[in-house]
């Protein structure tokens, strides 16, 4: 860390003057995003205070939609499932993605193929993905056949149809899609680490575990905040895989806040309540990420 401190001090001095062209650098993206994201988002916030069927004029109901959540059992299930989802999906994809990146970081024969193989699910169309995983989970599908083959026939299951297992069964294809992409972020991060740091450590006789703890991990800090944000964003928005495989069923057992919001908006046509659910999702995500980032920024200074 000491290596980086000196330039940081100098940088702070350099940044005092802000050339006007830089304001343009910031302003243009902010305005574009503001117009296409924040302006519609404000409308969404307003809609969360109304009842709206998507066609007639919305009618203002104040905080009624938020009050309704308190007594909504499905909301409770969806919120709990979302927490489970963040922990499992988030935890496994972060740890697994880092593991894969470390494994496939060094250039050697075949590594490009392995990376591409792990990344392929990210590029595959969702329609095909969900189709194939449904086939895998079918009563006479690959999973059950494998279980029978290794003598665990009694474990056979209708994985997606059983409310006990549906959520976890959907989690696996979601991870299958996500891991390659977290790996790519970590690979980019690992490439940014100065090899000289490892050289120095080697001269000091540091073991690989020590190198990871004292060099790799601290150096990955900025990537970690990216990955954390990605994971929170994706786990709260995880929608497409779940929706295309179970639609949140059977009877809401794999319902996430995001699928519940979508069903409320586009099936039940209750766009007001759906907007309120969206606001809850937003507040959750924002809360987690800002807490982390503000701390990270502070440590930086």
């Amino acid at each position, binding site marked *: 860390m000491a290596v980086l401190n000196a330039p940081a001090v100098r940088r702070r001095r350099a940044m005092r003057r802000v050339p006007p062209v830089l304001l343009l650098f910031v302003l243009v993206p902010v305005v574009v995003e503001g117009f296409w994201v924040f302006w519609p988002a*404000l*409308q*969404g916030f*307003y*809609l969360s205070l109304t*009842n*709206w*069927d*998507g*066609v*007639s*004029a*919305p009618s203002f109901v104040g905080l009624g939609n938020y009050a309704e959540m308190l007594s909504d*059992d*499905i909301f409770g299930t969806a919120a709990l499932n979302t927490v489970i989802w963040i922990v499992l999906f988030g935890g496994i994809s972060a740890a697994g993605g880092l593991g894969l990146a470390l494994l496939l970081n060094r250039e050697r024969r075949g590594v490009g193929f392995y990376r591409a193989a792990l990344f392929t699910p990210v590029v595959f169309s969702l329609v095909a993905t969900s189709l194939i995983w*449904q086939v895998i989970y*079918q*009563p006479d599908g690959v999973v059950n056949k494998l279980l029978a083959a290794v003598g665990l026939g009694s474990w056979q299951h*209708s994985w*997606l*149809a059983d*409310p006990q297992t549906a959520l976890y069964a959907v989690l696996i294809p979601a991870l299958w899609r996500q891991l390659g992409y977290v790996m790519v972020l970590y690979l980019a991060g690992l490439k940014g680490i100065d090899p000289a740091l490892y050289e120095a450590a080697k001269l000091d006789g540091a073991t690989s575990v020590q190198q990871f703890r004292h060099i790799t991990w601290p150096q990955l800090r900025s990537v970690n905040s990216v990955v954390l944000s990605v994971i929170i964003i994706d786990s709260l928005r995880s929608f497409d895989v779940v929706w*295309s*495989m*179970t*639609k949140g*069923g*059977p*009877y*809401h057992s794999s319902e996430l806040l995001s699928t519940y919001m979508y*069903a409320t908006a*586009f*099936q*039940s*046509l*209750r766009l*007001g*309540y759906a907007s309120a659910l969206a606001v809850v999702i937003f507040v959750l995500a924002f809360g987690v990420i800002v807490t982390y980032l503000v701390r990270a920024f502070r440590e930086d200074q």
Partner: protein
Amino acid sequence: MTSAAGLSRRHFLRNTGLAGLGVLGSSSFLAACATSVSSGPVKQAAGAVTVQSNLSSPQAKVAIEALAKAFGDKGGAQATVNTVASETFRTQLPSYLTAANPPDSYTWYPGSLLSGYARKGLLLDVGDVWQTMGNYSQAFRTLSGDGAGHQVFVPTTYYWWGFFYRKSNFAKWGVQPPKSWSEFLTLCETLKGKGIAPIGLGAGGTTPWTASAWFDYLNIRINGAPFHRQLLAGQQRFDDPKVKRIFDPWRQALPYFDPNGTALAFQDATTVLLQGRTGMVLTGTFFADAAPKDALDDLDFFQFPILDPSVPTAEEGPTDGFFASARTPHVAEVKEWFKYVATAESQELYIKNSSGTVLPANPAAKDSGTPLVQKGRKMLADAKELTQFFNRDSSDALQPTADAALIRFIQKPNELDSILADWQTAAQKVWLS
């Protein structure tokens, strides 16, 4: 008439402005938006009628495109078909209809959603098209109305539901289609004894709605079609003892359901039926699209058994057709297109190009003539009442509440009381909003 239409149109414009902006801006901003909406770009002003279609399966798509081509070849107006995935179509329909420049005509079905849009002034009154349509049955006429005396829909085809099975399989197993509920249960017992899952379902994955066919049929057989319609319209309760009663015969049949019924999606359930691993499936004729061509002649069906002879026989006869946006700039062309699709000639053309298991709505039109279709047509003609299907008679919004309740019943029949109570709560939220 014209002034009323103009009024509703203006009213509607203001609504769109409000909706789109979420009523954030000042009134002048709203006014500005409303004007800019009404003077929005009219891209397809060139004269072709746009037909927004959800008929996305390859065969149906070919059929409707052939229809549009034949219409254009007549030399009058032209029609261009715009196919989007049916799921996309369903979610986007409110956006399409409230757009400044909506597509002209749409594939859809009659039911509560349609009359809801009609009440909001979004649909074109096609009463004068109906005047040219000859002797369409009163049932279709009623179905195509908005409930306030306007015709807003043109039916083109309909189909039927029943217990479908493979003739060769029934012959192999030495069984006959049943004529009563007790014969039905005996048949199930026989099949089960042979190691076959008697009743396939296909309510797994993303097609839980197939389970609603059982609910519909039991309800119209026991409580009758009028009660069924009232229930689905929110005038009766799902926790009513009359509703609870229909689950008794369902419980009798439940041991004969394919244990994988809630795990296999509809299309896979079809395969399993064709392979003879299940005996029969309560389904609509569209399932024939999932069968290989060489199996088509081997398919047959029987009517859902009568449970109470005193209840007038009703059948599910879902109808498909077209409606148009009230704001289409091509009123004359749209009506020309509608007159065309209502003709016997066009419906015969459509049936020839599609899988051929649907029935033409025009009484003068010939169906595909196969024994299966003849039998289905007769069953519907003999019925005293026709219902559409759960989501059509109620709404797409209510369908998920039915899915949750019915799948849970199939998996956990002992929880019936709490299932019905939860269903009523969920349904109430939909009706109140």
